[in-house]
């Protein structure tokens, strides 16, 4: 299968996602430059982390206007699997491909560390290889990962089971002291209505090799690799 890694000016985890797809999981991978409106036959799209356009206006606010986003939207509407990691998640929110918005971390500081997230739903292309309730230890690195949705929308998101990852303690228990950024309902990852578009703040590509101190991020990649292989 072929991963398409979208590269915006200012993306900085593009090479990491590429490395994970290609070198760790042995899949085809190709960079998709934001000015091109061509997905080059990718089976799965990753919007990687970074600071697209410097995040100067608002995280992800400029990136949604890049030419590539038209084909990305069309791909998503056809049911193609799309994963936004960190800045990629923020871009999906700004593009309206996922509901809600990001605020600055409640500490008002950038935070880079390992966190624990509990898998809530496994019926998405990026969590199917995990088990419900499984706790993954994956790093975060962001200053604006404080997920927010107004009460009505939040209710709807919860009712639709769109929350796929939540920040918990190492045992998988909800506990506000283990919520690194103040996200409402401890939301760390989310999918759309159709469940094929997924955004997550933690970086699974940073947790795919034992040498890097953990392999819990593999579940995210293994999910989509096995899914497309079956298809």
């Amino acid at each position: 299968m072929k991963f398409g890694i979208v590269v915006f000016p200012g993306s900085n985890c593009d090479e990491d996602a590429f490395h994970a797809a290609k070198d760790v999981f042995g899949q085809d991978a190709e960079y998709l430059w934001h000015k091109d409106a061509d997905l080059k036959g990718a089976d799965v799209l990753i919007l990687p982390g970074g600071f697209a356009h410097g995040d100067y206006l608002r995280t992800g606010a400029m990136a949604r206007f890049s030419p590539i986003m038209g084909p990305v939207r069309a791909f998503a509407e056809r049911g193609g699997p799309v994963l936004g990691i960190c800045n990629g998640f923020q871009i999906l929110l700004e593009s309206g491909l996922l509901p809600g918005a990001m605020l600055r971390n409640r500490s008002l500081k950038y935070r880079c560390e390992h966190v624990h997230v509990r898998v809530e739903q496994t019926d998405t292309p990026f969590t199917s290889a995990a088990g419900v309730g499984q706790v993954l230890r994956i790093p975060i690195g962001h200053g604006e990962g404080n997920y927010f949705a107004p009460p009505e929308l939040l209710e709807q998101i919860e009712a639709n089971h769109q929350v796929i990852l939540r920040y918990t303690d190492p045992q998988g228990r909800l506990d506000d002291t283990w919520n690194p950024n103040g996200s409402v309902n401890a939301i760390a990852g989310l999918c759309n209505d159709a469940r094929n578009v997924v955004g997550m703040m933690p970086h699974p590509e940073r947790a795919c090799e034992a040498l890097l101190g953990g392999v819990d991020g593999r579940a995210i990649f293994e999910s989509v690799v096995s899914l497309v292989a079956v298809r």
Partner: protein
Amino acid sequence: MIDAQVLERHGLKPDEHERIVQFMGREPNLIELGMFSVMWSEHCSYKSSRVHLKTLPTEGPQVLQGPGENAGAVDIGEGLAAVFKIESHNHPSFIEPYQGAATGVGGIIRDIFTMGARPIALLNSLRFGALDAPGTRRLLEGVVAGIAGYGNSIGIPTVGGEVVFEPSYAGNPLVNVFCLGVAKASAIVKGVASGAGNAVYYVGAKTGRDGIHGATMASAEFDEKSAEKRPAVQVGDPFMEKLLLEACLEVMQTDALVGIQDMGAAGLTCSTAEMGSRGGAGVEIDVALVPQREAGMTPYEIMLSESQERMLLVAKKGREAEVERTFEKWDLHAVKIGHVTSDGMLRVKERGTVVAEIPNRALTDEAPLYRRPMTEPEYLREVQQLDLDALERSADAVTLGRSAEAVAPRSGANVAARGVQPGGSSDQNAVLLALLGSPTIASKLWVYRQYDHMVRTNTINLPGMGAGVVRIKGTDRALAMSVDGNGRYCYLDPYRGAMLAVAEAARNVACAGARPLAATNCLNFGNPERPAIMWQFAQAVAGIGAACRALDVPITGGNVSLYNETDGKAIYPTPTIGVVGLLEHADRVVGRRFQDAGDAIILLGDGRGELGGSEYLKVAHDLVRGVPPALDLEAERALQTLLVRLADERLMRSAHDCSDGGLAVTLAECCFDTNGIGAAASIAAVQVARDAPLNVAAALFGESASRVVVSAVPDEVTRVLERAAAAKVPARVIGQTGGSQLRIAVGGVMAIDQCVDDVERVWSTALERYFAKRVA
């Protein structure tokens, strides 16, 4: 008119002016004078330091590029080179901590990628006044946020560093930043202009009035309108630099480039003069073609502006279109502003009219060289006196009461601080807690959590775990790096202090299992025109040279920062040393933490209970006195070679250098971040004073050099001891890991007995608690 006042505003001495006239064969105009003033400034010309720097060892089979280029480079095998350098941004960071630190990071990153290397890791070495002194918090928060803001955005991990608090830096913090990149050894790019007729391109951010030297800015003679002073601190734009980084690396793949250099200090003047001078060529540019941020800029301002994120490059004739296309892709516009000539002159035009014309060499190679007078500082003999028998025992009770209270956590640790912990000496338990909670020793989690230290997915030794280590993708290899310095040691003895800094940085790298390859230095000192400061400088450089020679880590570049003074009071002389080492097998990397219960704890090296300049004297007795620990360079080299061997043979499971706070602090730190693995150790007594408790403290907290605590599975102990014996390194099993207590006996008598969790809480939360407590 050039008169005494104009010269003074330009920081030029009358004899320097005469020298200029001599080279020019005429009186320079004001633009030319401005260009000389920046190029002949201490910062660009190293006029006070060069005679000393020349004594440093800079060569070795591993060195691909020594000092003189944008950065140094060493061979790391498989056709690759590690390109690295350290630089200071002290003064700007004091004035505007966020932007000062941010642009420091931006500058050092440019130095690395202009060499054709992909930057893959950052380190920093920061020094502030006492944490509770007025202003420190603002500086610390600003500097850390600035480093984070720039490094995180551009996507280069900050994998380690040091943060030190010491009153000497209250009026002059030190912000030293280090960057490392990897390049193909055969494709290192130089900052050189050559080939008459080749196009000179300007690319990156537009030129503004920012960063023009304040003294010259204010000169009404140049332009009445420029009286509106912009801050001398530049503003960083990491997004622009990210685009420049990617575009430049892409252009370099095409071999359409002759040379490239960033516009850092002295901006366009320095980049044109240095590139021309290195290539033995001339450069002709027209300032009217330079992209400008604001209208009405004069040639003087354009030539001296230090606006950030700008590069100068020379393209091969006929290949211009390729270069332009690549920059277009990244929405950057490479603008042709001139060409290379064969006459060796730096010729500046404004719309075709020559406004400045100086031989390149006059600006660079012919800059003045000073052998400044030196005298041993008067304070030295006095502060080196340390009479341990005269230390009043009552004094430590007072000081400790204060420190222990300041660091006491919620739980049982403050019980220990009050001295009722059973087992062990109440005094020593309290001292250990006070040391672990002192801001210099305490965990820097609060700091490095704000840095993205994992981006690029190469970091295999995270911050706080010893040297920073990044693997090199596509190979089995990894690079370890550490920056270290100790201003207090250098204040007490600059020669020995500087040697100790080199030894510690190299030792930290060796503890990770990496063979130290080479070093870079950042020399932070006071005003060199004062003979006592110049003496400190010369002594420190001599110490660095001696240590680098003995440990075979040549200096491949660096930076000198002088005039670090406020109100005539200089900082402690502070050379910081960055050492880079190579691990041939990334998966044999070693960290500081104990791995499991039941492992043997082995001490490599011998302690002599040296307390001079120690953190113990400072924290427990509020004293900065004595001479720093002795250093036997031959023993140090043997120790480091042994460490690399033990790691390569996978015989040690952890290794941690013994430095600030001595063996007791080192053992405690080995237990931290392990989920509470304890340790029981028994260490040798020392005899340094009449007072028995002071002897115990010296054994626990003395900072004798060339010591490392390693752990090994019991089955491997014999082999570790054999290897040590073969290397002639003293080695002794001093205990075993396990349990939930940290217990240390000195000469068979229990001195420390504390629950690891309690001790760890003091250490891990000290900075955070400070920030939670005070809202200033």
